[in-house]
């Protein structure tokens, strides 16, 4: 997937480029509004990751421009402004997701994956990882073609792991993906532990290999060999 990253903070932009490139995406970075409009005009992207506060313009205007030119691409807003109005406005003018800084790269990646699935297969696809098969549209999961009954959170968790396979996923990243900001999430580490324990048990019961590795004190990794 070809991704344009519009973020004026170079170190942050570099991190995104590195993480996403590692996932096999083709990333280009621009650091201001003007350059971004030029690139959008010249090249084709599947997705754009855009910051709202740019030195020479507003990321929301960039989205409006894209929508006006009827360019179809996935849009993810990243912003330090976590106001509800901004969020609503961003989503209303056509953004797919709104991430508040600081965010976790795994979370950004998971959102990009879901945009990718939507663009590539119109959403009606399956994700197959060895013996695991997911049907995102129906929120269904299969192991060796046997359906496993997962709770909503367990399903989201599995999808998140698969989207970030072979990556170290921190507990904090998981918590924020599953429950969003604003909650006093300290105890959600317990919640996560419970969710993962249950998910792992359900997967193992159907003969699935134990892919979920615990990294002590830090988080988890969905490890495929």
């Amino acid at each position, binding site marked *: 997937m070809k991704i344009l990253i519009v973020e004026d*903070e170079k*170190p*942050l932009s570099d*991190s*995104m480029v*590195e*993480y996403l490139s*590692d996932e096999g995406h083709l990333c280009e970075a621009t650091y201001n509004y003007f350059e971004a409009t030029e690139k959008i005009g010249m090249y084709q992207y599947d997705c754009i990751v855009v910051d709202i506060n740019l030195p020479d313009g507003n990321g929301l205007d960039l989205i409006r421009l894209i929508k006006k030119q009827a360019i179809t691409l996935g849009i993810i807003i*990243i912003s*330090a*402004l*976590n*106001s*509800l*109005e901004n969020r609503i406005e961003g989503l209303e003018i056509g953004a797919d997701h709104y991430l*508040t*800084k*600081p*965010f*976790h*790269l*795994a979370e950004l990646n998971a959102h990009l994956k879901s945009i990718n699935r939507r663009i590539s297969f119109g959403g009606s696809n399956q994700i197959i990882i060895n013996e695991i098969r997911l049907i995102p549209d129906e929120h269904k999961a299969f192991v060796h073609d046997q359906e496993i009954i997962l*709770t*909503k*959170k*367990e399903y989201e968790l599995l999808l998140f792991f698969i989207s970030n396979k072979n*990556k*170290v996923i*921190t507990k*904090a*990243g998981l918590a924020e993906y599953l*429950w969003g*900001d*604003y*909650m*006093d*999430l*300290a*105890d959600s*580490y*317990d*919640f996560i532990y*419970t*969710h993962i*324990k*249950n998910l792992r048990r359900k997967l193992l019961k159907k003969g699935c290999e134990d892919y979920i590795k615990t*990294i*002590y*004190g*830090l988080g988890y990794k969905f490890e495929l060999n």
Partner: protein
Amino acid sequence: MLAISLFVFLIGIVAFYYFLRQQVDQNINLELKKREISLNKEFDALHSSAKPYVNLNDTVIITTLNQPRPAENFTDTLLFNPETHQYALYRQLGFVKTIHNQDFYIQIFKPLEETDRLIIRIVILMNLLVIMIIVTLIIANRHSSRQDWKVFYDTLTKIKNYDVNSHEEFLLQQSDIKEFEDLNRVLLTMTERIKNDYLNLKEYIENASHEIQTPLAIINSKMDLLLQSGDMKENQYKLVADAYEASNRLSRLNKTLILLAKIENRQFPESKPVNPSIMINNQLESLEDLIHSKKIKVINRMDSEVTVLMNPYLAEILLVNLIKNALRHNIPGGELILELSSSTFRISNSGPALQLEPEMLFKRFHTSSSSPESLGLGLSIVEKICTMYGFKVNYSYQNNMHVMQVDFHKA
């Protein structure tokens, strides 16, 4: 005030004139009536051989004077009225008239009874008028001074209730008294200055919080990448994990503080009817795994019809924080009781009694020793949201249960 007194005075004079007039008329009428009676009697006396009628009112007593002539004099005297058999007070004029070298002492009388009555009435009337004016003046004076003090007391109450965080304008009543006006002016400038300082400070903190987000995002993203590099020793992982945890804590803290500031600034204006029971059930669903693992028994006594008018986003934050709190401090195999009526929401959970003052619960950064990772801002957020909507939130400990109660109606 002057106008009121003048008005009363004028009315009094007019009333006085008419009343006096009426009194005098009455008096004259009475005299005329007496005159009529005496005339009638005189006529009767003329036509009969009865003893001639003596009209005391017109009595003239003429005596021959042998003594040296007295001067003309006015005196009060009592005369016996044979008809009423009573003595009555008369005013008498005595003078000497010389007819054919003979001195005659002539006394003429005028009854004082009627005039006395008139005088008494006039005195009473005048006193009434004066009393009326004095009373009016006192009332008017008291009223106007109360009006003046009212402004003062109004100012006093407003200062007492002054909240620099309030979004209502600080307005004081106008006064006619210069000193009060001065006081109000000074107060207005002062509160204005305090408010501006406060807003500047708040803006500074908000900006700082927002600016912190970007460096935090960079730190987090770099750590994310560092973690992915893979070829780290276990002790290195541990180092990164600790640093990562700390930066995460910082970013969560920052986000929560920004949220608190936003609630304080009332940046969640739009309210609509929210159904708490639907929200709570959704939350319970997403937390069901945890509830199962802790073997917590959920007892739902919520009225599913109840709606509350508030911002849906804040409503969710409020309820989620209360639920999480009740789960966090629950004991394995404990109970979680949810009760909702149109006036209150009450969430109770099993657990050992608190070792601290209940008021401390709502303080920022207060955390219990049992969950050190907690930021201690959850209940603070709950309280802020409740305050914003004028709800009352209360903690109590009953039958080994922690009870959080939110009253939707203003206390």
